[in-house]
């Protein structure tokens, strides 16, 4: 059916290329893209090059940047323990929060997909925290809930724990309150999982039920393999998002990354270097290292995906 239409389109495309209209369409194309082109040059590509240049300079905003070669990078990798510390905090945050978040998202999505009554209400309630959790208001709430006199400790004292710590002020625990906040946002990957689950044909389950497969076997043999492209999408999206988390750490630590740098996210360290210490050259170097780290994680995921992601278009 599409054959003739497509052929017709090809012909018309070839004809229009030599037609007088083609040149005006070229002009219209660039006209419509003008805002985007300006943005690309002035706000995206240009600044990328400039920040690459800054990363090789000593630059404090009010003075001209002065070229110092690779000194920023050398300092970062050899002397700066806060860089390594913030990298460690961020990696721990990402590697603990993202798998937990996706596990909850998948679990609840599968449960909700069982044809429960009131699905849309439940989906809304589970999703709502994702919508709100990025806000400063919720970070403020978290600060109280996990504070020394916070509601968590009121409950703990009620059940008999004497003198529970202030979770946000204790270096051993503070990061985990942020991880919990992230995991609480499992609603948006859940919504993506739900959409993916709906794509799985019901006949597959009916056929395997006739063959005697139980619910658990069905999950591992049918649901999970067919859902791997969606899992992959969620991993990429959440990974990139988690690496760039900022608001919660800033508010809960009062903009310091404390106690003892235990919540000093990489992005928070970058912010502090750039906008409170005004070491903009060094902060630019930090930004580029972050980009490289995120790129490596994303690339590793794409490479690994060949071994565990199943696409149903056969031989891939």
């Amino acid at each position, binding site marked *: 059916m599409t054959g003739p239409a497509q052929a017709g389109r090809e012909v018309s495309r070839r004809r229009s290329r030599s037609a007088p209209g083609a040149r005006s369409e*070229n002009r*219209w*194309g*660039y006209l*419509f*893209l003008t*805002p*985007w082109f300006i943005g*690309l040059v*002035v*706000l*995206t590509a240009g*600044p*990328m090059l400039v920040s690459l240049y*800054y990363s090789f300079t000593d630059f404090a*905003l009010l003075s001209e940047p002065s070229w110092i070669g690779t000194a920023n990078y050398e300092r970062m990798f050899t002397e700066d323990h806060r860089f390594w510390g913030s990298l460690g905090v961020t990696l721990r945050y990402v590697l603990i929060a993202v798998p937990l978040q996706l596990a909850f998202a998948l679990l*609840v999505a599968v*449960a909700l997909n069982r044809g*429960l*009554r009131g699905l849309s209400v*439940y989906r809304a*309630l*589970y*999703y*709502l*925290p994702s*919508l*709100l959790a990025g*806000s*400063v*208001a*919720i970070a*403020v709430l978290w*600060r*109280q809930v996990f504070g020394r*006199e916070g*509601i968590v400790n*009121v*409950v703990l004292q009620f059940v008999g724990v004497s003198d529970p710590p202030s979770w946000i002020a204790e270096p051993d625990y503070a990061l985990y309150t942020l991880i919990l906040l992230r995991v*609480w946002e499992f609603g*948006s990957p859940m*919504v*993506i999982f739900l*959409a993916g689950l709906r794509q799985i044909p019901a006949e597959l389950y009916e056929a395997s039920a006739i063959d005697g497969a139980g619910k658990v076997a069905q999950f591992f043999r049918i649901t999970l393999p067919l859902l791997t492209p969606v899992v992959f999408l969620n991993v990429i999206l959440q990974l990139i*998002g988690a*690496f*760039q988390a*900022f*608001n919660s750490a*800033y*508010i809960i630590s*009062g903009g310091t990354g404390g106690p003892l740098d235990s919540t000093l996210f990489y992005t928070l360290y970058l*912010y502090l270097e*750039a*906008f409170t210490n005004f070491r*903009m050259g060094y902060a630019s170097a*930090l*930004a580029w290292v*972050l*980009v490289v780290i995120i790129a490596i994680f994303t690339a590793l995921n794409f490479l690994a995906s060949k071994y565990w992601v199943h696409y149903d278009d056969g031989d891939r």
Partner: protein
Amino acid sequence: MTATTTAPASRRGRRIVLQVVIGLGALAMVYPIVWMFAASLKDDSAIFSEVGLIPSAFDLANYVEGWNGLGEPFSTFFLNSFLIAGLAVCGNLISCSMAAYAFARLRFWASAFWFAVMLGTIMLPYHVTLIPQYTLFFELGWVNTYLPLIVPKLLATDAFFIFLFVQFIRGIPRELDQAAKIDGAGPGRIFLLIVLPLLRPALVTGAIFTFLWTYNDFLSQLIYISERRLYTIPLALRAFLDSSGHSAWGPMFAMSTLSLVPLIVIFILFQRQIVEGIATSGLKG
């Protein structure tokens, strides 16, 4: 025979258990938000002693105190946030739909190359452009104005929406364009009179997400806005937290609760679009 009679009963039992577990889980998910709302109606001593939700006395004192707690009333901060978010929505819709129309419909030199460049910018972490953008806006004297928060939207820097709109325009039958072309309409008229009206569902999605992101955005507002009169809701809450410390949780919660109201209203009104936007294109919610 026995298997067929017991199976439905046990299945029903399991379904009830599942329903109860899911229901309790849903309550646990929204409990912190509801608790904050309840706490905003209590006085400070009750916030720390009562785990339950029903305050012993309904008291709007926290709201009154919080509303004027920063010198400027919170209405100023709400208006500022709405102004920025509203202008960001307009900017994104205009600039991204224009670019999307060009990519989806017009044939121009090197279009495939530019399309690839556009896709490449979607996943780019904003940190690489953050500092040069700041120095640029600093040189222009735009720091402590809203221009750095709005002008980039007019220049289609949220490339994700271009992609979203391109996908949508590709689904609009070309025959409509062709017919208009035969009637003598140029690309400008086709865009305004045919594509844009049909693009409405995608524009609504773009508007909702731009609003949510801008309203919740903290970092760029933190960097660019320093004058209290110009504070947005996130900045006001942070300033409130800094100035009152641990002494005034009640007013703090009252204002935090209010700050969530626009988000919840939008969620209730546009739940379908939000869920679809996330499900079909991975927009972060």
